[in-house]
């Protein structure tokens, strides 16, 4: 029993060490937002549809590409771009900063993208991974 507990503890420790030290370099760095089919019709019917948050948080080297996809049947102003039906708009970020875009999809007329620097190895990387896992589970 003791041996089993020790092994489990060791595995958890190894997992946390990996999560803290392994570089964040995911194969897919897209942060995807989609306009579902029928959104325009819902809006026309008076339904207040909010798909894109007014503030989006990205992290360099982890999820630093904003990917907006229009699955609806009409062109849509989605964030900073007019996107045709079936079209995507992929916007990469390379500098940590706060970006403001004109966006008619929001009542404020603005959309902000806050790009955080690449997390340092250790606690910052571990923290980022844990938050990402929690987000995936929820």
């Amino acid at each position, binding site marked *: 029993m003791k041996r089993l507990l020790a*092994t489990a503890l*060791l*595995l958890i420790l*190894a997992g946390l*060490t*990996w999560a803290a*030290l*392994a*570089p964040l*370099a*995911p*194969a*897919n*760095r897209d942060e995807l937002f989609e306009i579902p089919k029928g959104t325009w019709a819902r809006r026309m019917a008076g339904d207040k549809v909010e798909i894109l948050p007014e503030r989006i948080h990205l992290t360099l080297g982890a999820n630093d*590409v*904003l990917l907006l996809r229009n699955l609806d049947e009409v062109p849509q*102003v989605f964030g*900073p*771009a*007019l*996107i*045709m039906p*079936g*079209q*995507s*708009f*992929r*916007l*990469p970020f*390379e500098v940590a900063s706060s*970006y403001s*875009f*004109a966006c*008619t999809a929001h009542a404020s*007329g603005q959309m902000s993208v806050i790009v955080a620097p690449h997390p340092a190895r250790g606690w910052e990387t571990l923290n980022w991974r844990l938050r990402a896992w929690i987000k995936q589970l929820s």
Partner: protein
Amino acid sequence: MMRRLLVSLFALLLTTPLLAATPRLKAGVFEPPHAAPEFSLQGSDGAELKLGRYRGKLVLLVFGFTHCTEVCPITLGTLVQARQALGKAGEAVQVVYVTVDPERDDAAQLKRYLAAYDASFIGATGKPEALAAVRASYGVVANKLATKGGYAVDHSSSVYLIDRSGRLRGMMPYGHGPKDYVHDLQLLLSL
């Protein structure tokens, strides 16, 4: 057991960076690219200005106004530097500057203003409703704001990248330097 665990951990540390994404345009990219919305306006050279006139060239489409004190001078200055950095290849790049302030920006005013940056840049003006239709087709926003001395126009500040076949390829947000433009223009010229 311990040794196997350490070997796996080491292998993971070594291979993870190899999964990084391949390089792309620095600008935002439209996928798949569609034909850039065509328009017919008055050019700063006095002739009718249509995008089709520049088929075979890369077009950088900018929206702004000649009384702009913040965004436009930086954007146009950046485009001048990028075009110069491209050398001979820069001749295949055409900057088209569409005014959002037709009240003050007639063809002559646009010509004078753009000549201070690069004589090859061309301006476009027209009736307010025609310009509003062009803005709507690109998702560009422009709002007139009262100032102490008169008015200014708060406008979208991105630059649209249109390839040699007339397809809208990308949109470069404000703030990118000449190097990023050179990177993307070279990529688009090589297509």
